[in-house]
């Protein structure tokens, strides 16, 4: 039996904030004034800012209606490949907001913030255990921020040895942030092509690796959803020529508790707490991108480090080799709390289960859809499966059309047109929190869409029909950008 998702209901229109409200309305209860007014230099004073004046109900209705136009994980299945859109436990959100965490100023004297410092220390230990690395910083705000830190560490490492290396090997399957992060550090990305099996060959790396190459940036499993089987040999090759291995941990959901990342030869690894560790994506952030390193790179981690002397926790800024600082304070603390709550809720014994079920779900979908959709790599995948629109092209249907039609059936589309290494990719990552019934429903709908592609392609070309808007004119938005009212 499968659960059918049927769509009906009202979608309210809602104007822009300044199109509602009236001068004189207000919804803010300003704290009382218990001091006299003081003179303020008229030359410094501005006119009243041009912000809308709304009543409290105006504001509430506005944002409630806006929220109803959004599709979240809480609405339905969100199989966005590479993003790990798993269920976000609500207790995590509550814990991030309890008094004693949410109201703690970052610059309080250390004796007043022992709870926060202990928390950072404990979460650090958990992440070290899960990854098999030696040390960690929780400071980066997102995966890309962690990548930047990784590049800075690589750069500092070589500079410290008196070497000037200006290249970095980056696979053709890499996420766009990888080459962008490399450039931010002055590195020239050198592309390594994946082989016919969709993974990296050690011979290809051997050819590219030289004394001018600082190292390699790889993602494992890679963005095709395939495990980089040769990662240890590749790491050895890079290390032999004095380079470092950076691991993009965005796909950790496939191998958590199963692979000891430390043993794969990775020197630096970033994690995405808003992916693997269930912190909510927030419509685009905030995230958290902790970076784990092996012992020899610990001195380069950003300041401050959290120390524990058996009695007290403290912040240590005395780290002469540290690359510096990435944010004003210690990281996205509110996000870290959610990840820690998640790890404790799971317990060590369930960390592995997450990956097992995530990979099981993805392989099930892969098997069930490979007749209807072209599967470029017909082999066991990890937590995500990549298809293409090859079978549907003969009806004039593209990956985009398939994605838009899924919306009409109540599913968020998968990631499309990424990775670039696969033409017109459709990357499906169900995650472990989707049930068999939901997945069967998704499979049934995908099969229906394949049939529609053949028999009634217009339904796809015009999709979506049921959402707040139909397909939007992105060309107009790019030619004549209107970025504010």
């Amino acid at each position, binding site marked *: 039996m499968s659960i059918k998702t049927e769509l009906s209901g009202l979608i309210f229109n809602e104007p822009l904030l300044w199109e509602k409200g009236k001068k004189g309305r207000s919804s803010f209860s300003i704290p009382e004034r218990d001091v006299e007014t003081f003179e303020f230099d008229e030359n410094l004073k501005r006119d009243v800012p041009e912000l809308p004046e709304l009543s409290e109900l105006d504001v509430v209705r506005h944002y409630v209606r806006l929220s109803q136009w959004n599709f979240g994980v809480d609405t339905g299945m969100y199989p966005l490949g590479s993003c790990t859109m798993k269920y976000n436990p609500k207790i995590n959100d509550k814990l991030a907001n309890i008094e004693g965490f949410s109201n703690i100023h970052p610059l309080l004297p250390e004796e007043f913030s022992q709870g926060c410092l202990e928390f950072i220390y404990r979460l650090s230990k958990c992440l070290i255990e899960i990854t098999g690395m030696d040390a960690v910083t929780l400071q980066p705000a997102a995966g890309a921020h962690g990548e930047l830190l990784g590049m800075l560490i690589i750069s500092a490492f070589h500079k410290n040895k008196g070497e000037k290396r200006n290249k970095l090997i980056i696979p053709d399957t890499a996420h766009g942030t990888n080459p962008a992060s490399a450039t931010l550090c002055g590195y020239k990305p050198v592309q390594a092509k994946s082989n016919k099996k969709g993974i990296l060959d050690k011979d290809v790396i051997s050819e590219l690796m030289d004394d001018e190459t600082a190292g390699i940036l790889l993602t494992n499993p890679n963005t095709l959803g395939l495990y980089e089987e040769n990662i240890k040999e590749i790491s050895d090759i890079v290390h032999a020529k004095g380079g470092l291995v950076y691991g993009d941990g965005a796909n950790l959901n496939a191998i958590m508790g199963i692979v000891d990342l430390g043993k794969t030869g990775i020197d630096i690894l970033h994690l995405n707490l808003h992916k693997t560790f269930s912190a909510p994506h927030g419509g685009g952030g905030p995230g958290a991108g902790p970076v784990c390193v092996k012992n020899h790179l610990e001195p380069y981690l950003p300041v401050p480090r959290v120390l524990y002397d058996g009695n007290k926790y403290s912040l240590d800024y005395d780290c002469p080799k540290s690359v510096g600082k990435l944010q004003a304070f210690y990281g996205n603390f509110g996000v870290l709390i959610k990840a820690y709550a998640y790890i404790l809720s799971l317990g060590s014994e369930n960390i592995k289960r997450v990956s097992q079920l995530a990979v099981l779900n993805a392989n099930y979908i892969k098997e069930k859809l490979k007749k209807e959709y072209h599967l470029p790599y017909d082999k066991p995948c990890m937590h995500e499966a990549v298809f293409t629109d090859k079978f549907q092209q003969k009806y004039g249907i593209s990956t985009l059309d398939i994605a838009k039609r899924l919306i009409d059936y109540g599913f968020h589309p998968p990631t499309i*047109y990424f990775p670039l290494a696969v033409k017109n990719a459709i990357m499906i990552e169900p995650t472990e929190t989707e049930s068999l019934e939901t997945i069967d429903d998704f499979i049934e709908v995908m099969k229906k869409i394949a049939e529609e592609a053949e028999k009634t392609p217009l339904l796809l070309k015009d999709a979506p029909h049921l959402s707040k808007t139909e397909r939007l004119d*992105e*060309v107009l938005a*790019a*030619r004549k950008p209107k970025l504010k009212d």
Partner: protein
Amino acid sequence: MSEINNLTFPKTLFYSNDHEWLKLNEDNTLSVGITDYAQDQLGDIVFVELPEVGKILNKGDELCTVESVKSVSEIYIPVSCEVISVNTNLEDKPELINKNPYDKGWLALVKMKDKSELDALLRKDQYMNMLKGI
């Protein structure tokens, strides 16, 4: 993406492997643009970043970039030259490249350094053969 036979490639023009067309003008200057195939591949063009007038370019240098919504393409000049003028109409109407790639959608007017470099360029038949091989 259209069939090659439905696209246009005027006989009088020179073509490059990177899908540019070049027109030798009477005063020996060259008008440059991208071919019907290129604009068809790129899709709706939303922005063109044109070079500065007076810029000196070597054969194979980047002349400009052409953007669609989801991609950016670098356009390389197949001859050494100096940029004399650029098509400023493209600032407001980048879609001219899609509608009229050989005429109103021209990119730049350049002065060649070495006229013999034209010999290395393709003519219509050679260009179309190259396309059919893609």
